[in-house]
């Protein structure tokens, strides 16, 4: 009886991976627990073990193949004595051409076509991107963009250093800091124990002592352990010292829902941090946002909360080649111009907003998608100008509904552009529940493009 060996999911957000290396050959006898192959996810290279005993009857996906979808059959195990021809005919594996999308090798830049084939979700490169400066661009993932921003700023300023859990020798829990230890050494890429409150406080103290720390939280869920230092120590000291000393530093890491990790590891803190005077808050969507905003954040003399997104890490966008490219704070970008409705979002919400806009276009509704990029300061002018043009507004975010960024925008628009509104502002948010684990419930809890489409139709009275 032949058994199919399927491409495994090796991280919560993995949808596909690279079959880096086979460690067995056709005809080899394998035992349960034996390592069959090395599989590269977007985070790490993992060893993949056999579950069943048997003989490798056929290898279906050649090593070096990228973009192998989870659950694709990659090999067939047969029983002793059984021949390969007895095994069921292998299904042709739906894989992309073997392009080396290996992030650690910066010289092996994937082509746009290869990335498009590999990326399951639409990249922004095909959309109007009115905020990018003139000049050449290259395609890179959000992950590469963040890494490059840190590396460039660390090269430029010897007082910039990175600290956090697994940032050094492990090369980053999400591979954001991969290679930085090799380049900058353990003095500047500091592995900490699992002790968020302690190292956040040490980071703030170091910023007062003349350094520019980048404090990485493995995820922002763990920043709850450290929020006292972010809010009470970092954000308020400039004010409480009458302007004598501030906290030039960045707190960064993934924020928002990942995939199937349950309530304690899936939540968006954008509105929480955006409520605090003294902090600046960024939430990039594209790789260009990520790179340009992180460079600005590191240079900024204030404490910056920099909210990344695990699901966006592997997505690719166009980023200016210019090493001096930065994105200013408080400047939204128009991801897609439109005339019927303004859809305001930030972070991964932009992905849903853009997908909805595509859908709406098919029905003759022209949506203008505004990407806030920073939540403190917020670019009210761009939002208000767009709403005054379209007369309708829908906000999109992943966070909880009460006290959301959308609530704040709705109130601002009501107060400053009331006469321009043809419909109430509708706020699309995550549901008002802890994130469930079950796949169907999780999907239901999160904001979807379909909900954005429905909201837009409601404000357009369609």
């Amino acid at each position, binding site marked *: 009886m032949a058994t199919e060996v399927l491409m495994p999911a090796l991280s919560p957000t993995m949808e596909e991976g690279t079959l880096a290396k086979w460690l067995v050959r056709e005809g080899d006898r394998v035992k349960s627990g034996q390592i069959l192959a090395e599989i590269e996810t977007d985070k790490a290279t993992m060893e993949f073990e056999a579950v069943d005993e048997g003989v490798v009857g056929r290898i279906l996906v050649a090593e070096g193949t990228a973009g192998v979808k989870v659950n694709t059959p990659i090999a067939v195990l047969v029983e002793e004595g059984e021949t390969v021809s007895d095994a069921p005919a292998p299904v042709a594996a739906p894989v992309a051409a073997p392009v080396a999308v290996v992030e650690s090798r910066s010289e092996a830049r994937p082509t746009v076509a290869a990335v498009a084939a590999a990326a399951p979700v639409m990249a922004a490169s095909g959309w109007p991107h009115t905020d990018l400066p003139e000049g050449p661009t290259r395609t890179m993932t959000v992950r590469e963009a963040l890494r490059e921003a840190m590396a460039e700023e660390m090269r430029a300023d010897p007082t910039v250093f990175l600290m956090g859990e697994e940032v050094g020798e492990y090369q980053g829990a999400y591979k954001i800091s991969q290679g930085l230890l090799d380049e900058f050494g353990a003095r500047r890429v500091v592995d900490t124990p699992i002790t968020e*409150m302690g190292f956040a406080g040490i980071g703030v103290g*170091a910023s007062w002592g003349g350094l520019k720390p980048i404090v990485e939280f493995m995820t922002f869920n763990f920043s709850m352990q450290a929020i006292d230092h972010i809010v009470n*120590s970092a954000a308020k000291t400039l004010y409480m010292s009458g302007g004598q000393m501030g906290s030039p530093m960045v707190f960064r890491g993934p924020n928002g829902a990942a995939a199937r990790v349950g309530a304690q590891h899936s939540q968006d803190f954008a509105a929480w941090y955006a409520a605090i005077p003294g902090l600046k808050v960024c939430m990039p969507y594209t790789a260009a946002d990520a790179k340009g905003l992180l460079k600005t954040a590191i240079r900024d003399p204030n404490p910056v909360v920099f909210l990344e997104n695990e699901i966006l890490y592997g997505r690719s966008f166009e980023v200016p080649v210019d090493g001096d490219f930065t994105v200013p704070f408080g400047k939204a970008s128009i991801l897609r111009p439109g005339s019927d409705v303004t859809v305001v979002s930030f972070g991964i919400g932009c992905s849903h907003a853009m997908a909805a806009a595509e859908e709406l276009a098919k029905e003759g509704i022209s949506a203008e998608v505004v990407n806030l990029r920073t939540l403190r300061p917020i670019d009210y002018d761009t939002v208000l100008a767009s709403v005054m043009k379209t007369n309708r507004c829908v906000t999109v975010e992943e966070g909880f509904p009460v006290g959301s960024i959308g609530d704040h925008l709705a109130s601002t628009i009501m107060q400053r552009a009331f006469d321009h509104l043809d419909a109430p502002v509708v706020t699309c948010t995550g549901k008002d529940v802890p994130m469930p684990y079950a796949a169907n419930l999780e999907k239901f809890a999160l904001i979807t493009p379909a909900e954005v489409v429905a909201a837009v139709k409601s404000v357009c009275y369609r």
Partner: protein
Amino acid sequence: MAKKPETRPNVSKEDLLKYYREMLLIRRFEEKAGQLYGMGLIGGFCHLYIGQEAVVVGLEAVAKAGDKRITSYRDHGHMLACGMDPKGVMAELTGRIGGYSKGKGGSMHMFSKEKHFYGGHGIVGAQVPLGAGLAFADKYLGNDNVTFTYFGDGAANQGQVYETYNMAELWDLPVIFVIENNQYAMGTSVKRSTKSTTLYGRGLAYGIPGEQVDGMDVLAVKAAGEKAVAHCRAGKGPYILEMMTYRYRGHSMSDPAKYRTREEVEKIKTEKDCIEHVRDLLTQGGLASDEELKAIDKEIKAIVNESAEFAKESPEPPLNELWTDIYA
């Protein structure tokens, strides 16, 4: 607490007079602050340092230029001891523009970048990792400065203290953890909050050496401080000094201090007072006459009165100060 030394310690007249003067300044300043609070000129929380003066004065005696200090909300003494201007401190207490934070910080939140005083922190225990962070910066920058990180016996039960111990020792940070054990965390005595009442000993679990010191004896404090500073400057990592001390006043101005007896307080005042101790050393050793000491008392009184006058006369911050210093 140790008894007063029987023999005359090996210390110069100048040094003793200096400690006397500095401790007296703190005491008179705090008494005046208490008065101004009673008059309604100081608002909110106001935590007086009276009784504990020997701790900061003894440790400042071993500090050198560039060394840093950070403490809790009971911070007036630390500021005066490191040379901050009493006028600026008192005017901050009254919430005036002439205060160190332009009236925007208050009693608990004052800073002086010039004097390397990094606050003044209102969250119990938060200053401990912050202090270690200052030390992290000094080590990173390659100088031999140390950071005095003060906290009380109450803060010693906060988890972040132990997170910090762990990293400070792991990374050999030049930080001196000074536990000012005044025996009461607000109204809770050490005995009622922990069974491991030898607080410095908790550092041993992380490999940090430390010792208990008679915090009412400025000379004992200075001697222990010298040892700790030498350890830190030599790159050997952190050191813990548990200063056994006592506050004479309540936790804050609004604390009736019913959790201890009047006799307990009086006994310490009579037998252990840090200023009387130095005064005795000066007079009994024939190092200073009553007239000399009276002249110092008068001089200190004048400085404190001047600071109070300044704090009353300095205007309130203009309303536009509400909006400044939020972002650099």
